[in-house]
């Protein structure tokens, strides 16, 4: 068993970015992501990382500088959170549409008002349609591994898409825990320097990027992106398997925990998955057959995989730290339910919104959600709608 080292989650991200040998880092400080780029700045200043760090004047420019650097063939990194991601919003689409394999970490943070530096997933969810591959991580090990895989996946000729690696602000940025570090030799072997595409911006082969998208071509342009995003799923699996063979740590689109005989499945993403697993253990001690499905990949959305996994369960309770204002509850809930809707046999899908603005979700709260979902499917309890807010003081 390889030796684990102590590391703060943020620094696990920085270390992966360093070991990925990025060429350009362009970032603007925002809590709770700042530790990541502070450490990268140190690496660059110390000469431990042969890269350029662009101290931009906003997140909009952070992503814009990544566009330029990535378009000439550089491996680029940025990190942001909350308002920073919101400010980047329009630029995110350009990165995806121009097929630039930028990797960005998002230390998921609530959106203002009121100003909240604390974690929830509403930032990325508000930009979920930007064309990026979107992955949610739980802990330092996963952050480290997924970032390395993200570059490999993003830069694959068959993909060429940006990847957002999400993890909950503070809960998965400011915690010191332990992880195994893949050796630099293994990383170099797995992830050689980025191959500069033949169409990169360079005077030796002039190309024109971002031409006017007349009505006659915009449909094809958008569908081309959608196809690329859909296709990226199988390549991601290839990459994860390859990484698994090197490190022994395998990743998949989702990760079930004690779901085999479960009567209720909690479905969620991010740092609370572990807390939910503890809740499942406790429920099982009390005779409640519950399980957790941790979803790792949010874009491209794994609807097929979820259909085949979830179809025979009785009830699925989606717990998430975001919601669509005036819409149908949480974004994840909406998409899970939509994925299952046309099946003849399908579970009841319930949505629970919790953990907004960094509010802690306790073990007993996950237990209550599982019990409530069971009660509802058993007709012992009713919910006004299929989704609800938890943790609201009435």
């Amino acid at each position: 068993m390889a030796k684990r080292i102590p590391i703060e989650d943020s620094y696990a991200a920085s270390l992966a970015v360093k070991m990925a040998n990025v060429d350009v880092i362009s970032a603007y400080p925002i809590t709770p992501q700042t530790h990541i780029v502070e450490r990268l700045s140190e690496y660059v200043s110390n000469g431990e990382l042969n890269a350029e760090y662009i101290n931009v004047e906003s997140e909009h420019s952070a992503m814009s500088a990544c566009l330029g650097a990535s378009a000439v063939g550089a491996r680029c990194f940025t990190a942001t959170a909350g308002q920073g991601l919101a400010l980047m919003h329009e630029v995110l689409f350009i990165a995806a549409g121009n097929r630039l394999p930028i990797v960005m970490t998002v230390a998921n943070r609530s959106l203002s008002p009121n100003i909240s530096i604390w974690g929830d997933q509403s930032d990325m969810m508000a930009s979920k349609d930007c064309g990026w591959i979107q992955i949610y991580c739980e802990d330092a090990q996963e952050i480290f591994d997924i970032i390395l895989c993200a570059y490999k996946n993003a830069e694959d000729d068959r993909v060429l898409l940006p990847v957002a690696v999400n993890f909950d602000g503070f809960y998965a940025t400011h915690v010191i825990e332990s992880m195994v570090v893949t050796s630099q030799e293994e990383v170099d072997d797995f992830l050689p320097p980025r191959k500069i595409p033949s169409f990169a911006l360079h005077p030796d082969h002039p190309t024109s990027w971002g031409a006017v998208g007349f009505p006659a071509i915009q449909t094809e342009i958008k569908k081309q992106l959608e196809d690329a995003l859909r296709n990226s799923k199988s390549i991601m699996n290839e990459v994860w398997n390859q990484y698994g063979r090197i490190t022994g740590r395998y990743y998949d689109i989702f990760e079930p925990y004690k779901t085999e005989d479960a009567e209720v499945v909690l479905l969620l993403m991010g740092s609370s998955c572990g807390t939910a697993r503890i809740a499942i253990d406790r429920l099982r001690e009390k005779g409640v057959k519950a399980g957790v499905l941790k979803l790792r990949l949010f874009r491209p959305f794994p609807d097929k995989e979820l259909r085949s996994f979830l179809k025979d369960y009785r009830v699925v309770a989606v717990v998430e730290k975001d919601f669509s204002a005036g819409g149908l509850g949480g974004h994840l809930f909406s998409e899970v339910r939509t994925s299952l809707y046309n099946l003849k046999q399908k579970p009841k899908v319930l949505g629970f919104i919790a953990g907004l603005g960094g509010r802690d979700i306790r073990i007993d709260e996950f237990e209550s959600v599982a019990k409530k979902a069971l009660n509802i499917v058993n007709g012992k309890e009713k919910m006004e709608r299929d989704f609800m807010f938890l943790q609201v003081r009435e």
Partner: protein
Amino acid sequence: MGEECKLKDKPTIKELPIASIIMTPATSRFYKTGDWRSFRPEIDKNKCIRCGLCWVYCPADAIIRTEEGDYEIDLDYCKGCGVCPEECPTKAITMVEEAEV
């Protein structure tokens, strides 16, 4: 002009290059702006002093400097703005109405 045939303003999704990047430089030379014109400039070679002002001032890049140092209007691209006769120091250029087809 084989290259011209490859330019499709309505490509299928498979023909559309990645990220709709235009892979060939300067393709607008296949788009002739000459038909925008109602008046065409004509150079009187006898009056022309070959100063090159019409060439440098042509906003449409539609005046050709020949190897001999002469200047010719490239009617494929001339939009007929009228800048060249206006700026010609010897009044060697006049605008002539395009004949109806």
